[in-house]
């Protein structure tokens, strides 16, 4: 099983440090969710895990070897990344898009094989996109479009899958739909999933391992039930809140307070 971790990772845009001296061990075969306030460095961390940016110091280690010393294609066969709101070329069909997920497995002399065909068929079926395979991506609804992109990442058949806010711009039903789909991928194939999410309650529901970031550092990590407390949320997001059990999953549920809605004593 592919193990991915960060060691003493410092990431910077120009001269500005975004992530500082970060150590992170991603539990293999589990769903890890990274949360934090805007500009806390969570997307940057994900980009570094996918080798999309080069660290200033430290390294991302893939099975113990620095990811920047590995051949690009080898990394692409082990780690798949879906960036935030990717844009598909105009008129591209779902099938064509998903097929491009196979490129790390292809060579100049063997550009398409039955294994590719099989992987694409499985990815389409797993994401429920088989019926829409020949539709242009730009004619799909937001939820279907996101499914098509996830299908591309699935067809890549990587043991590690990184997703940067896969629910952005989706309505609530489609958010749940996408998160369920990601969970399917983890539970069925044992893929290691790391995703950045905005919604704390969804993060608590779907994470096996929760990473809470603040100012480029890890403020807390672990089982959501153990990690998410009113004090932590106040410290990290600067927002007063109450934390109650989610009535459906019993995972922590964060109820924010505001100037107009201050705290009241909870009657249990």
């Amino acid at each position, binding site marked *: 099983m592919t193990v991915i971790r960060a060691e003493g990772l410092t990431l910077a845009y120009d001269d500005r440090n975004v992530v500082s001296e970060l150590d992170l061990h991603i539990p293999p075969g589990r769903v890890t969710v990274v949360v934090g306030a805007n500009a806390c460095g969570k997307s940057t961390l994900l980009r570094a895990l996918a080798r999309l940016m080069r660290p200033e110091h430290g390294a991302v280690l893939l099975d113990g070897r620095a990811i920047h010393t590995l051949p*690009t294609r080898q990394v*692409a066969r082990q780690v798949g990344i879906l960036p935030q709101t*990717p844009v598909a070329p105009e008129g591209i069909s779902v099938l064509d898009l998903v097929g491009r997920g196979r490129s790390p497995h292809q060579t100049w002399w063997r550009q398409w094989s039955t294994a590719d065909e099989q992987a*694409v068929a499985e990815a389409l079926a797993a994401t429920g996109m088989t019926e829409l395979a020949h539709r242009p991506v730009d004619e799909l609804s937001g939820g279907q479009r996101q499914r098509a992109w996830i299908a591309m990442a699935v067809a890549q058949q990587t043991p590690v899958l990184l997703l940067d806010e896969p629910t952005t711009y989706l309505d609530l039903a489609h958010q749940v739909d996408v998160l369920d789909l990601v969970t399917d991928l983890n539970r069925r194939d044992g893929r290691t999933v790391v995703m950045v999410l905005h919604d704390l309650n969804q993060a608590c529901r*779907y994470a096996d391992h929760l990473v809470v970031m603040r100012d480029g550092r890890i403020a807390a990590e672990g089982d959501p039930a153990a990690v998410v407390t009113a004090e932590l949320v106040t410290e990290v997001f600067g927002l007063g809140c109450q934390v109650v059990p989610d009535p459906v999953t019993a995972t922590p549920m964060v109820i924010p307070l505001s100037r107009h809605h201050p705290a009241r004593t909870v009657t249990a």
Partner: protein
Amino acid sequence: MNAVTPPVPGAPTPTVLADPYAAGPVPTTGDRSRTALHRSLFGLPLRPRLAVMCVVTALAAFAVFCLGLALGDYPVPLVDVVPALWRSGARGTVFVVHEVRLPRALTGVLVGAAFAASGAVLQAITRNPLASPDMVGINAGATTAVVAGIVLGFGDTLGTPTLGLAGGLLGALAVYLLAWRRGSTGFRIVLVGIGVSWMCTSATDYLLTRAKMHQAQEAVGWLVGNLNGRGWESVRPLGVAVAVLLPAALLLAGWNRNLQLGDDVARGLGTPVQLARGLLLLVSVALVSFATAAAGPVLFVSLAAPQIAQRLARLSAPPVLLSALTGVLLVSGSDLLARRLLPDTDLPVGVVTGAIGAGFLLRLLVRSNRAGSGG
């Protein structure tokens, strides 16, 4: 998801959904024929429509090529044209076909293929049909360099192909440094490219005002895109360039397809983004520069041919090979028209490609917008 955690007492019972993991292995057999996934053929994805279009366009281009060799002041029967290419037949026929008409026809074929393939590569990387070499300053850079060679008198020593390549590279470098280095794509490249293009055009115009009469005439005859009087000396360098660069563009097509998904996705798919973009840009610039050096800036081919090919094949980006074949058909057909429409005036091919290419492109844009596919 903590599926094992018991629900909170008093909470509403969750709706029981079918267990998604009980579905077992994903059914794939039988899906094949229904969804018509890409099958493979000798390791290549089978795209029947693209293959058929390539064959049809190639046949049409060959027919026009032969027609161009047959027609003229000394008409040759079509059946004698193909044997004459291998120097068999009456001596007069072989001379007319092989020595007089073939260099011009071949230049047309190579120029069409080079311009169109170059446009296909560039339009695909930038995801913008307007970012073709004749819009973004590459063509104009090559033109300025060649005109400078003619007017300032160093053209003969350096050779037109070298000058064209140098000028095209400089034009492309200017666009790259001003617009592209920070990873911007699409519209910004087009705008900066148009700026660079006009700077080069101004420089060309200035050079022309300084030129002597015979130099100006030579330069202007070449400036509109012209196949008149092209001999083997323009076929050879361009032939070598196309023979090397067209296969290179085809080999790099996989990287280009990934680049169209954006830098991050492309890198995630294992594409060395900077290297791939650099090589593709170099191939595109070299193709257009060699073609410009051979025949002048033949208008609209690198813009229109890839767009026509893309619509013929119904793909999301212009396919290189079909674009090249479409370019061959466009230039060969235009040259034939130019020669036959006004036989006494030697109408330059660039005038006809401009008119035909622009007209066809407009028709396609209007039609596809009406169909709602957004051009």
